[in-house]
């Protein structure tokens, strides 16, 4: 951070402290809502959802070989492979948003070209593990699933459309040596890696297992009753795997990158929750922004509501994962399900600052096309989802 930015930040905080009428009852209510929402996250989501998810994300960055994924983005790779790998590679590569743009520029200028590059650019931030897990957990599994499926389909569609629109341009590409991250020599088999990941995902699922509806019988209540025993059992399995299959160095790397994610994401998410709580309140509680505004703008499932949600999502900058509490507030205040998905699909992949960087890489015309395609697709997806989810 530059010194000038720091000064500006301090001045802004000072002005906010000085001028906001903290005594006003609406402001007090909003402030209270902000911390109530933060507490809700702290109590319900941090231990059982976020922490396991951080460990999984850390494991993915350390144990999954990036080189094996990246080699599909070279200039010589088969196009079908490039597109399909690009559309899901966000789960493996892009847990840190700062790696997306350089990779995109690399794929675009040296590698597989504009189609796979834009596919990757879209899918990278949209389908990372943390985002999908948190969406499913807080906004419901239906929206989480719709987000994951929507993101993969969109990524491929966007890439293909871009490749068709700009097919002539694609030929003038510099070819040269490309460097992918070094492939580490490993002692483990793919099966061992897969089992390790599976154990962690199972821990996440069981630790976060929701209380079944009152009076339901059969499997779910039984699982719920035993969930801590199952979780503990799985943890023991995990420890055994770590002890026998992994080198000390790998374990240290794993903990380090998990810690890296926590440092990076917790402050952002905490601030996001506070801001969302202050502006919108928890579901069912009102805060600073009156609910009828939100209902007029993005309530229901009209074309206008969906379009408004996707355009504003495309322009707004969401720091990693903060789209989730903000949407939670919006849905609580009356946002429709369709517009919510529109915003989720258009939001994390695009933002004003992001557009400027993309513009620097591939020019204004292509960037504009890219944004318009995403806004239109998100709007359509929102309308469809809104119809289906009622």
């Amino acid at each position: 951070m530059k010194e000038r930015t720091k000064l500006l930040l301090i001045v802004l905080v000072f002005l906010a402290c000085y001028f906001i009428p903290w005594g006003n009852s609406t402001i007090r209510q909003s402030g209270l809502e902000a911390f109530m929402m933060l507490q809700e996250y702290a109590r319900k989501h941090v231990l059982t959802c976020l922490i396991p998810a951080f460990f999984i994300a850390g494991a993915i960055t350390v144990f999954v070989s990036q080189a094996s994924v990246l080699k599909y983005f070279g200039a010589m790779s088969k196009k079908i492979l490039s597109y399909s790998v690009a559309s899901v590679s966000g789960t493996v590569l892009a847990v840190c948003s700062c790696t997306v743009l350089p990779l995109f520029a690399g794929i675009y200028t040296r590698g597989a070209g504009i189609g796979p590059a834009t596919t990757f650019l879209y899918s990278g931030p949209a389908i990372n593990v943390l985002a999908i897990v948190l969406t499913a957990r807080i906004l419901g599994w239906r929206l989480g699933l719709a987000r994951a499926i929507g993101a993969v389909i969109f990524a491929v569609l966007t890439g293909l459309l871009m490749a068709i629109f700009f097919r002539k341009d694609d030929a003038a590409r510099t070819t040269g040596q490309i460097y992918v991250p070094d492939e580490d020599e490993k002692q483990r088999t793919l099966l061992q890696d897969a089992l390790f990941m599976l154990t962690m995902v199972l821990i996440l699922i069981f630790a976060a297992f929701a209380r079944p509806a009152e009076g339901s019988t059969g499997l779910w209540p039984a699982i719920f009753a035993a969930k801590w025993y199952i979780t503990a059992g799985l943890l023991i399995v995990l420890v055994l795997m770590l002890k026998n299959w992994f080198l000390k160095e790998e374990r240290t790397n794993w903990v380090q990158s998990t810690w890296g994610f926590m440092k990076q994401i917790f402050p952002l998410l905490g601030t996001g929750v506070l801001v969302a709580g202050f502006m919108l309140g928890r579901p069912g509680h009102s805060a600073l922004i009156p609910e009828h505004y939100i209902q007029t703008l993005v309530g229901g499932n009209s074309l206008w509501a969906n379009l408004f949600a996707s355009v504003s999502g495309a322009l707004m900058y969401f720091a990693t994962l903060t789209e989730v509490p903000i949407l939670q507030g919006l849905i609580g205040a009356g946002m429709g399900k369709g517009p919510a998905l529109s915003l989720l699909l258009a939001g994390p992949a695009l933002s004003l600052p992001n557009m400027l960087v993309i513009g620097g890489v591939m020019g204004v015309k292509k960037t504009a096309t890219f944004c318009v395609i995403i806004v239109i697709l998100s709007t359509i997806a929102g309308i469809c989802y809104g119809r289906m989810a009622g």
Partner: protein
Amino acid sequence: MEIKVLGPGCPKCQATEKNVREVVTEAGLDAQVDKVTDVMEIAKYGVFGTPAVVVDGEVKSVGKIPEKREIMTWIKK
């Protein structure tokens, strides 16, 4: 000697730059260490993944924070 650290400014890139600078100082080398943050500049080196370290135009590491002894082997000739 010219050393370039490629990375848009994420914590990993900063850690890499710090390591490189420390090694250069410890070895008492007369080397110029530059940080490249512009994504187009980074793409020109053909690296798929950041942080990356380039020594005299040669890509030495991609996508990880190199350890100090590793850096030492690149700059010692």
